[in-house]
């Protein structure tokens, strides 16, 4: 028997080891044990024989693969034919579908071959499911080998039977079922070498360092954004971002706002003049809009009453911080009010609260997914939003030991500290600070009627970081001229702006939010680049 085994050139070490063991131990052992050993040796030999048979069979089967039609790399889909095949979504795989034969298109997330079996994890966006190719009457040894060799991230079509599992599969989003693959075809093959591994990219900060596993740094992620965006975390972040936009539009439309589009190439710098990108414009030069402010206000003067716009905003600030981008998406609001600019604050804060509520109620899975990689406390807010006055904020900071003047602007660390103080007392991550000193606001800000040192302006904060800055605007051309002169602004340059208020302008106010910053702070992330799909900063123009 042993001879035949060796002839078959089986490389299994099992029978040889048992033989060695037997000779070694024979001397010291009793008769009974010897018998047992003999039996075991026989058993092992029988097993080896079986394996040898299988091996010889395999040799033969290379020419004769019964499952040839059940796997392969399919021809490039060039829309040759229109199949009526129904593809099931991974997220819909549930125990109700048990024992059904289904078709499915997904990416190979991971694969692990083990003898006659190959375990695959198939992924569709943030959902994944375990699949199994095993040698049997449907799959041949070659098919298993083929499945095991499909590169990670390739896209495959599989036909499989859904099976319930006894034990929950903890590593997959579909925990109660697995797929038993009967056919598998590669639709698009990924290169074998990936610039970054998905599992490394979703590893929580710090965890990798402890276990000596890799984490992916920000630049590698951004250089290979296409793969980075495939991670569950990125998927969740940008789904949530889309939700913010959707909720912003829905809420404002419901409130009677009109969405407008404003030009991004403008002739004059809108705010101050610094921080603008200059672009060549035929024989002259133009600027990229820093904010749609002037156009929003012109729409107000043109009787649109309440407007909002969603669009890119450009800032030529050479600051490489966690929260500055040179291009970001601005969500801007401008509206008329009747008697008090708090009507505007109430409208904006209510919009924000509706967004937060929408996210809390409809995006819980996404929030959980992100917090798995980037743990953070859930975002807390009050309805209606808490409004504090600037002087109160200053008093709170002074009580905490900060030395600052009444009319000083808040520094970033002080903003954060104030955010913590407010959170401690009111337990809210979102609040409004009202009545800023006039000196620290732009020229078009309406001064306070009772105290010329202060103004009708406000900032809104999320987790202690400013997300919106707004004010009642001066709608009187005389006062506007006066304020511009006070700020030493060239009146010629803003002539058209001032002129737009000469033909009757309603009192109005507004503000603008940065979409990326809102998403970052809502999720408690620490870098705005994580919530910008293809971020632009002073050091990055690609991809």
């Amino acid at each position, binding site marked *: 028997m042993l001879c035949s085994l060796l002839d078959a050139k089986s490389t299994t070490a099992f029978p040889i080891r048992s033989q060695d063991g037997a000779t070694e131990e024979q001397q010291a052992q009793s008769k009974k044990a010897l018998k047992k050993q003999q039996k075991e040796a026989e058993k092992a030999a029988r097993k080896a024989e079986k394996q040898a048979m299988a091996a010889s069979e395999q040799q033969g089967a290379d020419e004769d693969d019964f499952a040839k039609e059940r796997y392969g790399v399919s021809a490039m889909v060039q829309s040759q034919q229109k199949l009526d095949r129904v593809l099931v979504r991974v997220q819909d795989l549930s125990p109700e579908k048990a024992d059904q034969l289904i078709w499915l298109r997904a990416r190979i997330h991971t694969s692990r071959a083990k003898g006659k079996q190959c375990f695959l994890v198939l992924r569709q966006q943030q959902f994944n499911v375990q699949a199994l190719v095993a040698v049997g009457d449907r799959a041949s040894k070659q098919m298993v080998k083929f499945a095991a060799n499909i590169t990670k991230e390739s896209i495959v079509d599989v036909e499989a039977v859904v099976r319930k599992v006894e034990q929950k599969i903890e590593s997959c989003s579909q925990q109660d079922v697995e797929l038993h693959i009967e056919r598998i075809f590669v639709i698009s093959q990924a290169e074998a070498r990936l610039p970054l591994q998905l599992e490394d990219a979703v590893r929580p900060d710090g965890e990798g360092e402890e276990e000596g596993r890799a984490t992916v740094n920000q630049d590698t992620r951004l250089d290979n954004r296409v793969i980075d965006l495939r991670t569950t975390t990125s998927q969740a972040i940008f789904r949530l971002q889309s939700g913010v936009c959707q909720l912003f539009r829905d809420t404002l439309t419901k409130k009677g706002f009109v969405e407008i589009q404003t030009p991004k190439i403008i002739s004059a710098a809108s705010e101050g003049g610094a921080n603008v990108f200059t672009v060549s414009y035929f024989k002259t030069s133009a600027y990229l809009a820093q904010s749609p402010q002037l156009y929003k206000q012109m729409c107000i003067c043109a009787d649109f009453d309440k407007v909002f716009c969603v669009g890119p905003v450009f800032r030529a600030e050479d600051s490489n911080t966690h929260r500055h981008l040179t291009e970001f998406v601005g969500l801007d609001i401008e509206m008329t009010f009747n008697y008090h600019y708090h009507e505007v604050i109430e409208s904006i804060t209510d919009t924000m609260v509706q967004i937060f509520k929408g996210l*809390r109620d409809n995006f819980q899975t996404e929030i959980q997914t992100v917090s798995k990689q980037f743990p953070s406390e859930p975002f*807390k807010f*009050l309805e209606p939003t808490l409004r504090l*006055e600037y*002087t109160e904020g200053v*008093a709170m900071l002074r009580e905490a030991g900060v030395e600052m003047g009444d009319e000083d602007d808040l520094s970033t660390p002080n903003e954060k500290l104030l955010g913590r103080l407010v959170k401690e007392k*009111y*337990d809210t991550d979102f609040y409004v600070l009202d009545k800023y000193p006039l000196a620290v606001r732009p020229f078009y800000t309406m001064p306070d009627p009772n105290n010329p040192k202060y103004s009708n302006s406000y900032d809104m904060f999320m987790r202690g970081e400013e997300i919106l800055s707004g004010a009642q605007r001066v709608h009187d051309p005389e006062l506007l001229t006066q304020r511009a002169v006070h700020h030493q602004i060239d009146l010629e340059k803003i002539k058209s702006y001032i002129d737009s208020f000469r033909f009757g302008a309603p009192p109005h106010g507004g503000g603008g939010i940065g979409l990326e910053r809102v998403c970052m702070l809502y999720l408690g992330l620490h870098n705005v680049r994580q919530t910008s799909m293809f971020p632009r900063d002073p050091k990055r123009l690609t991809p």
Partner: protein
Amino acid sequence: MPMYQVKPTCGDDIKIDLPTCMYKLPHIHAQQGDSRSSEHALQNGEVDPAVSALEARQDEILRKLYELKAAVEGLAKTVTTPDADLDVTVSSSFSSQSSRSIMLEGSTDLDTLLGEDLGALRDIVINANPARPPLTLLVLHSLLSQRYRVLSTVHVHSSVSSVPPQLQSCLGPRHPDSYARHLFQLGFTLIWKDVPKLEMKFSVHNMCPIEGEASVARFLFKLLAPYPSDPAAATLVDSWVDTAFFQLAEGSSKERAAVLRALNSALGRSPWLSGPEFSLADVACYCCVLQSCAASSAPANVQRWMKSCENLGHFSSTKQLLQ
């Protein structure tokens, strides 16, 4: 005066030969000759009435100083640990004030009670669970609004998905000046939040959050009127407050019945629970009777007392909430 007593070292009768080239002066000891007897008396351990008068005056001044110190300490305690009851000394020093206060008209100054105004609105933040609206605090809020300019705001925290409209408007309509926070003396911010126990935050720096409706009620009531001057009366108020929250609001039906009987007999003796004056005891017991739905079956004196409470006009919001 605590001094050693020493015998005279020499007698008066020593003869000294005096030179004639010097002026003669009258004997200085002999000048006091008329008071010599009293000098003797002092040395015999008796006290000069003038000195004893002085001593008495000093003692009086010291006593007053200690009293003042205790009063100030007591006030500091109400600010830093509002749970601590006022010392007897404090109440006695306030006695003149409280005797003047009829229906909580005593002049309590927010600066002395809550510390100096630093420019920020003194905002009392109360986190309450909408499942258990704090009725006593609503009554106290109404009383506070009568006394001070109170900015009342109601918020809903994100931990609570929805709150019935009557809870959102439980602090009454918005003040017409609410756009300017600096015009107010006191802020009363009620946040409906998913908290296991009612909590109050006032000064996050100097004070830990206060838990429990009874404790917060005591704090708020001290902004309205000092505790009774008499320690026995103060204890009486406290015991009624505890009875209300532990036995009426949370107790079994047996306990409740017992409390109602006790209330009835107490109210048979005086118009209010703690005697001739309306106090926190009345607020707490009224609200807890109302909450335990025992109002209709209450004995006669209790019924009459509840009527008088309602006549004060501060209890209407609680009834609306329970409807």
